[in-house]
């Protein structure tokens, strides 16, 4: 083996430092916080908040120094206030995020007292908390869905405010919900379980159904091929299912399943709760064999989750035409509970 000379070692070290120093210096605050929480093994909330505050201070100081050194003092009063305001908001957001993580953890553990504490700490309305806590842990029967509903969703899949839009992935928890809407929650870390609690309490009587798990940034049975991960992903679904059912037990709550022959059975097998219906994705053509699709999910209520969901817009089908009318008729006759048309 070739012997490395001393000067080569020095060169390598310099190169590594050249790569590492900017990477560290430019790391976003979120990454720095995560890295410190891991490296310092911060378990308690107090330790986590301390790290968060320290990291925020680092950013505030850097910005202030730059501004002070370049601009006259009287001009910088407002920027500093803004920085300070931003840091307060960021701190609040991070605290909320930690509370949200803890809230989900306590929900899973069935620790309603601590879950309640999380909500109270964030000043969630007492009535909302009471409704949730009263409903948690109760047995809920599967909702019998007898009617068929047609939904329309924008291609962005989040709410665009169009008059005929009645299905969307909830991104703004303060949005105005219309009667009969279908709300969809994804279960990634971006989803805020605490805000979902408030959203559900506020809109429970307007919503016609809820779907849990949509896309999920790859945590679905289309992209995730490792079956051993399904149980964990389904636990995330269960958090949101519990919230929805605790607040409105008779509201139909479904989960998403991609029609993927080699994963869909394992996906559903990993689900620990009794969902009311399945929103079947990966079926997007009006001419699909809906009878056979129904046969593949015996004794389940199905909704076609993404009709017309084409990447290639030239493949888009006509809404309301003969093929569409026949499609709705067929689904109704076969006993499906709905269809989401991607506009």
């Amino acid at each position: 083996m070739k012997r490395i000379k001393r000067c080569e070692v020095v060169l390598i070290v310099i190169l590594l430092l050249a790569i590492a120093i900017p990477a560290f210096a430019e790391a976003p605050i979120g990454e720095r916080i995560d890295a410190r929480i891991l490296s310092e093994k911060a378990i308690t909330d107090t330790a986590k908040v301390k790290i968060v505050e320290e990291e925020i201070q680092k950013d505030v100081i850097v910005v202030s120094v730059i501004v002070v050194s370049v601009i006259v003092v009287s001009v910088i009063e407002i920027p500093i206030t803004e920085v300070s305001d931003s840091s307060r908001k960021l701190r609040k957001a991070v605290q909320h995020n930690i509370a949200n993580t803890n809230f989900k953890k306590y929900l899973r553990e069935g620790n309603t007292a601590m879950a309640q504490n999380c909500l109270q700490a964030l000043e969630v309305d007492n009535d909302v908390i009471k409704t949730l806590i009263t409903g948690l842990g109760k047995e809920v029967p599967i909702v019998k869905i007898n009617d068929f509903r047609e939904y329309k969703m924008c291609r962005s899949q989040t709410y665009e405010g169009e008059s005929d839009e009645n299905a969307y992935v909830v991104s703004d928890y303060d949005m105005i919900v219309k009667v009969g809407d279908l709300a969809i929650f994804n279960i990634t870390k971006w989803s805020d379980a605490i805000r979902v609690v408030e959203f559900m309490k506020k809109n429970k009587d307007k919503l016609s159904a809820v779907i849990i798990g949509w896309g999920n940034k790859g945590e679905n049975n289309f992209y995730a091929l490792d079956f051993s991960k399904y149980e964990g992903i389904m636990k995330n679904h269960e958090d949101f299912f519990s919230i929805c059912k605790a607040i409105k037990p008779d509201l139909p709550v479904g989960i998403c399943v991609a029609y993927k022959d080699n994963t869909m059975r394992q996906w559903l097998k990993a689900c620990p709760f009794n969902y009311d219906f399945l929103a079947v994705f990966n079926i997007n053509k009006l001419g699909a064999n809906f009878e056979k699709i129904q046969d593949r999910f015996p004794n389940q209520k199905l909704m076609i989750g993404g009709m017309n969901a084409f990447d290639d817009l030239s493949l888009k089908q006509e809404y309301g035409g003969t093929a569409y009318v026949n499609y709705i008729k067929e689904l109704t006759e076969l006993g499906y509970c709905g269809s989401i048309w991607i506009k």
Partner: protein
Amino acid sequence: MQLKSLLISFGLVLITTTLLAWVGSDPTIRIVSPDAVGDADTLAVPLNIKVIQINTAQGIDDAEYWLIEEADGDTYISAAEWDTKTVIPYTGATIEDVNREASFVIAELGTDQLGQDSSYYIVGVGKDLNGDFSADTTLIHEVSMDGDANIADSAIVRFTLEDTR
């Protein structure tokens, strides 16, 4: 806009963007015997036609297979040859709901269907539950035994009859 709202919006854009790509199918029709990749089998009758139909995504609704006699000695299915195609296994029925890695026999062809020293093609096309086909049959004429962008090599086979048993 608060940073958190911004992060959530950004996250949701990422999540929902990937969702529309969350559609796909990978139907495969493979004619195992005669060998569709080698396209050089010289066989005797009766011969079994063995295939694999697999689609890990949108499943297999049904599949159709056609027998075409080679008329001009080349390795292409001409439009005229394609017009003479007959459905295997001659019942007019499609082969439904078979979606698996294991091969299976779809027909045994004898002297009623095959002539001595003649060459033939077999073409297979599958349909998934979404209503998509593994190949467009309107584009199959003038296709080589090696397939093309429309139909895979494994779904089109050319073979020659050696002798009657």
